[in-house]
């Protein structure tokens, strides 16, 4: 259930530290970022209502979806919306982000006074003002004391569209270093932005959860084309990289499935070897043998071992070829036989009688 991520957001920030910031990254090949975002939103909201989290309130900056969809989402997941004005506030940057309606409308504005959890924001391009409005709203929810609130940004992609990368990065870092903010999380569509903008957002966030297609290939470009013939509309993988306090990176992977009732997570079935070898230098020697090397080693014919096939033993002595040495020995032995026919020197070698004692002779396995 994306447990570790929800837990880090729930636990929030320690004194004197930056608040944890989650970026959910998705792409066209696996467009389930919003499902993950809403899942985390619901989880965190239920923690806030139950009082289990560090943050006592939540500010949702909704840029790509209407605020009513959020209230609907919370109602659907049985989060207590009646008391919602005490702990949630939605900043509506969706209806009129650039303030066009004010310019065109002649009559008075039609703000809904009964809706206390909503306020509209009309100048998305002014990121500094957005920051101060978020802080004010949050402070309004939790009070001026030590309590904290968390911030959910519906779509960082929308923010990056309206203002520069520097201002969005400074907004994120200012939010993270604010005393009263417990955690922040936002959604980003990775194929809408340049590499540098993505790298900048990843740099400023402490947890990056990327929503990947189920059969994720290494090259990002190829996967879309391959998957379009067989689109997997329900399943995918969530790869999470979280920066831990000691400087290490925790990498986890989960499978998720999107259904009508929501999203469900499962631990990943197969673990593929991570590419850690790129981190450390290659060792110049290897003490272990691969499969092929083992097979080859068993096939090597050692020169003095029993070769067991009855034929004369091939011993390569390094100076002449094998055929030559065989041919040379036969005429010489023939010559010797002739001579012994005339002079009759019969010599019996003592050692002929001796049978090689297999228990004692250490050279038994050699055929010399």
């Amino acid at each position, binding site marked *: 259930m994306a447990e570790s991520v929800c837990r880090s957001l729930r636990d929030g920030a320690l004194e004197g530290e930056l608040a944890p910031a989650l970026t959910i990254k998705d792409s066209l090949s696996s467009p389930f970022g919003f499902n993950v975002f809403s899942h985390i939103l619901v989880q965190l909201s239920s923690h806030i209502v139950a009082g289990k989290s560090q943050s006592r309130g939540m500010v949702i900056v909704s840029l790509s979806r209407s605020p009513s969809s959020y209230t609907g989402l919370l109602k659907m997941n049985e989060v207590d919306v009646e008391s919602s004005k005490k702990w949630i506030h939605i900043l509506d940057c969706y209806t009129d982000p650039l303030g066009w309606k004010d310019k065109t409308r002649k009559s008075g504005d039609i703000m809904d006074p009964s809706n206390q959890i909503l306020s509209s924001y009309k100048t998305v391009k002014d990121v500094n003002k957005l920051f101060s409005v978020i802080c004010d709203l949050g402070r309004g929810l939790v009070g001026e004391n030590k309590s904290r609130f968390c911030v959910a940004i519906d779509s960082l992609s929308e923010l990056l569209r309206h203002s520069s*990368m520097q201002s969005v990065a400074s907004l994120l*870092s200012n939010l993270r270093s604010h005393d009263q903010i417990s955690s922040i999380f936002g959604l980003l569509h990775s194929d809408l932005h340049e590499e540098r903008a993505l790298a900048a957002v990843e740099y400023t966030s402490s947890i990056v959860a990327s929503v990947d297609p189920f059969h994720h290939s290494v090259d990002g470009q190829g996967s879309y084309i391959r998957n379009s013939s067989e689109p997997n509309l329900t399943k995918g993988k969530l790869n999470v990289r979280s920066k831990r306090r000691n400087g290490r990176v*925790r990498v986890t992977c989960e499978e998720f499935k999107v259904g009508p009732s929501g999203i469900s997570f499962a631990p990943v079935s197969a673990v593929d070897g991570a590419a850690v070898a790129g981190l450390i*230098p290659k060792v110049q020697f290897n003490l272990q043998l691969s499969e092929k090397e083992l097979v080859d080693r068993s096939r090597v014919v050692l020169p003095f071992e029993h070769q067991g096939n009855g034929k004369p033993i091939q011993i390569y002595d390094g100076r002449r070829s094998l055929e030559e040495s065989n041919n040379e020995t036969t005429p010489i032995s023939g010559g010797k036989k002739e001579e012994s026919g005339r002079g009759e020197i019969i010599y019996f070698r003592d050692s002929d009688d001796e049978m090689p004692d297999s228990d004692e002779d250490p050279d038994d396995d050699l055929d010399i």
Partner: protein
Amino acid sequence: MATTRTRVSSFSHNVSFLKSSQHPGLKNGPNGTTFISSGISDLDKILGGGFSLGSLVMIMEDAEAPHHMLLLRNFMSQGLLHRQPLLYASPSKDPRAFLGTLPSPGSSKDDTSHKPSHEKDLRIAWQYKKYFGEPQLNINTNNGGHHDYCNDLDLRKPLERHFFTSNNVDCVSIQNSPNLDALKDRCAEFLAQFSRNEGSISSAGRIAIQSFCSPQCKYSDMEWHMLSFIRSLKGMARSSNVVVVVTFPPSLLSPSCSKRLQHMADTLLSVRAIPDEDKELAKLLTGYQDMVGLLNVHKVARLNTQVPVILDATTFSIKLQKRRFLVFECLNQAPVDGSGGSSYGNSGVCSRSTKVGPLDF
């Protein structure tokens, strides 16, 4: 020219040992250069003495790990302990707050060398003992005091306030400035105090710039502006008795800008994060549990000479001994073919200082 030294023999390394009367924070190096300590004794050993005065040290950050902050903390703290003025620039709103995290010298000095235990457990024949001692190059590792060249800094113990409330430390925030001209002026002012002249060096200074092209800075997309700033900073530093340390995250820059910055550095280091609880890495490396990251030394500064430094190893593991003291150790790799990794010669981006050859082991 530097002071003349008597040669011991024609084959000596021609390094003179610490002249403690001069200044505890300075040490003479080869070819007329002077070293100041980086604050980490292992790093001083690796670099052959420390950072050369007048050089530009660049540290490449990893977006996923804050190890560059450890290096910066030690560097800044060592300078303050030696009463060397410091200029610190950072993209946060309140750089002064960072000074509260600077480490202080550790109180109990358990020896960092393992030799005494060696003597007890393993009795080495006397004629072989000379091969096991670490070559005592330049580092004086005696105990105590603030008058060491390099102190063992305890990262959990904050530095006493009196070190940085004096006029020694100047902090600049580069977050809101639209361009780098203001920072350049501050640096020029600082460097003017330490301009090099023919006489002996009275004091040295340190400049530390953290996360130079951080995305929240307004000038972070003005790449040529940043490059010209670093170039002029390097030129000014060359003629003064200051070491400049700049950290930057190369992943946030375009590849050509990142390469140019790397080439400008006199000493180039990079820190990298390692995955947590990774079984593959635990198999390949012994001591993985204690490691927090990796340090790569790509280039070592060599001023006044054309002879490059060739290191035995360029990748080191970053460990926190007792969670307090920063140490760098050579990697103990299992002899399993970690195929796919880069070989020693190519591990650095600028591997000018490492030789690559067929007999490279």
